[in-house]
């Protein structure tokens, strides 16, 4: 972190004349923000970290000002969390999200963006169809998809039924599809060391539906930046549509793909809304992701003071995200206005 700050400072020094010394006025401009940020973000964040080293319950919360109520646990909460099978189950489900969601959403949005780019008429209308769901909250998206999964009047079971596939058991190697009960047991995948309940996909689908639009927008922007000469040159060389797409277009979009994938990964790590509304982490804990476990540790497990474990999970989750997205963070900072 020190390196980053130094980088910013160096940049600042280089752009010597750009920002004027602020003096009093600077502080007045930034004071409201700093105050709100400190009180409602920094302090709670610090509190989360500090309180993760204590044992406490949400009904008798840890308070910095009241040492008498402290029950120091050192790294105890972290040890409990990291040795808890349920935590690793949640981490596993989150890992499923981490792998599947960015891949599906990125590939899909890439294909859609390129497809739309290739046609002339109706591009705008088509793009709108894929982009509009971004305004829908993940909660509402989940509700919509629960309707689609409904065994009695949902489109998915009905459509499958037309082909006689509703409830069909299809086994392909380690993949056992059941094609029914989308919200509890649509199928399993044997991975040797674990069996993945595909119900996670039922929560991932609404998220893909809602957030693919972001990829479409990003890739569309990237596509418009590709110089036509490159394409012309390839065409003159006799390349067909596919080859051009594969060898010219996609490499040019690499930067956008990274950004899109990173954003999707960040979302996957902290997903709560859509899982909460579709499966509530169930059946049992088959789709319980880290964010849901955290919430339960804080508010539902009241028979033992587990809020310390909840905050420990929050710290772990944040650490993973900051470390994992560090390069992204650096690139954001490099764009810092000087």
């Amino acid at each position, binding site marked *: 972190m020190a390196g980053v700050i130094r980088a910013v400072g160096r940049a600042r020094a280089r752009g010597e004349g750009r*920002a004027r010394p602020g003096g009093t006025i600077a502080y007045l401009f930034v004071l409201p923000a700093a105050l709100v940020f400190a009180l409602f973000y920094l302090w709670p964040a610090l509190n989360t970290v500090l309180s993760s080293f204590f044992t406490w319950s949400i009904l008798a919360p840890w308070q910095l000002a009241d040492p008498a109520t402290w029950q120091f646990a050192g790294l105890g909460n972290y040890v409990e969390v990291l040795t808890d099978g349920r935590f690793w189950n949640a981490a596993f489900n989150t890992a499923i999200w981490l792998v599947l969601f960015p891949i599906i959403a990125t590939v899909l949005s890439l294909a*859609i963006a390129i497809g739309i780019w290739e*046609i002339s008429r109706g591009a705008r209308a088509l793009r709108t169809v*894929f982009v509009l769901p*971004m305004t829908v*909250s993940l909660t509402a998206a989940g509700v*919509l998809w629960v309707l689609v999964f409904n065994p009695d009047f949902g489109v998915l079971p009905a459509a499958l039924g037309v082909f006689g596939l509703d409830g069909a058991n299809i086994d392909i190697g380690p993949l056992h599809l059941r094609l029914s009960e989308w919200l509890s047991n649509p199928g399993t995948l044997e991975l040797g060391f674990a069996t993945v309940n595909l119900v996670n996909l039922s929560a991932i689908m609404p998220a893909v539906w809602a957030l693919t639009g972001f990829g479409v927008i990003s890739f569309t922007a990237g596509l418009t930046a590709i110089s036509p000469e490159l394409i012309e040159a390839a065409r003159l060389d006799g390349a067909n549509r596919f080859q051009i797409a594969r060898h010219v277009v996609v490499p040019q979009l690499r930067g956008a793909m990274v950004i899109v994938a990173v954003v999707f990964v960040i979302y996957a790590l902290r997903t709560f809304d859509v899982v909460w509304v579709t499966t509530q982490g169930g059946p049992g804990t088959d789709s319980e992701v880290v964010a849901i476990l955290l919430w339960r540790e804080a508010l539902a497990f009241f028979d033992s003071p587990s809020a310390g474990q909840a*905050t420990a999970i929050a710290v772990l*989750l944040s650490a993973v995200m900051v470390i994992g997205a560090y390069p992204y963070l650096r690139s954001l900072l490099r764009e810092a206005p000087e």
Partner: protein
Amino acid sequence: MSGLRRSIGGVWWIYLLLVLFSILWLVPVMTVLMTAFRPLSEIRDGWWNLAGATFTLDNFVGAWSEAELGSKAINSAIITGFSVAATVTVGALASYAFVRLRFTGRGLLYFLLISTMIVPVQIILIPLLPWFRTLGFADGTWQPFLGMVLVHTAFGLGWAVFMMGSFMAGVPRELTEAGQIDGAGHWGIFSRIILPLALPGIVSFAIIDFVFVWNDLLLGLTLLDADHAPLTVGIANLQSAHLAQQDVISAGALLAILPPLALFVALNRYYVRGLFSGGVK
């Protein structure tokens, strides 16, 4: 501009695929529209049975009053409206400071703000519950709203400064220098030169922030009681109850979807432009 179609034929199958796909993409929307605007008894065998379809607004009435989603929609409006206003105001001021001024701690504060774009909301969630209580925001008619607005503002400042800052940085130096020569102080430059020119960026951000706050579930679920809960929490609770009230839930979901959707449709290009200055929350 799509450079391929004129020179290479065979674009019809791309059209076909795209149209098919977009139809699939619209299925959830059709589902909710049908389930919300038709009586539940008609939907039970599949909303695609259009024979004898009737149109009804009863589900909305039920959602608004019996399911009490009306008061929750109003709560959402209050929270979102004030949050966006506060975030834009506070954020614009701060953005100007980051872009045009130098002050001690600028680098550190900027770093902290930007990191909120990556760190999940869970990092602040749990202590906020007792913290609200200490600050007196847990009780009362307007206090919980104030607390939520402040939390959303704090959480949105990183995005605000990043997005609005980049737009402000794009204002040509000549203009600000001209203002300085004319004797305008920082406030003058900010209000009369920077703000009007960075307005598109500010509007972009406001839209994105609106969508984000309006659609929030976790903060509302954890910090607010039934009287102040936003629409998202209302819908989530209806869903967990498994009451087979799909008609009411659909109407409620539409109520939740419409405001951000309308905003997007009306101000489409701002939204897209805003998203381009970085990733999405």
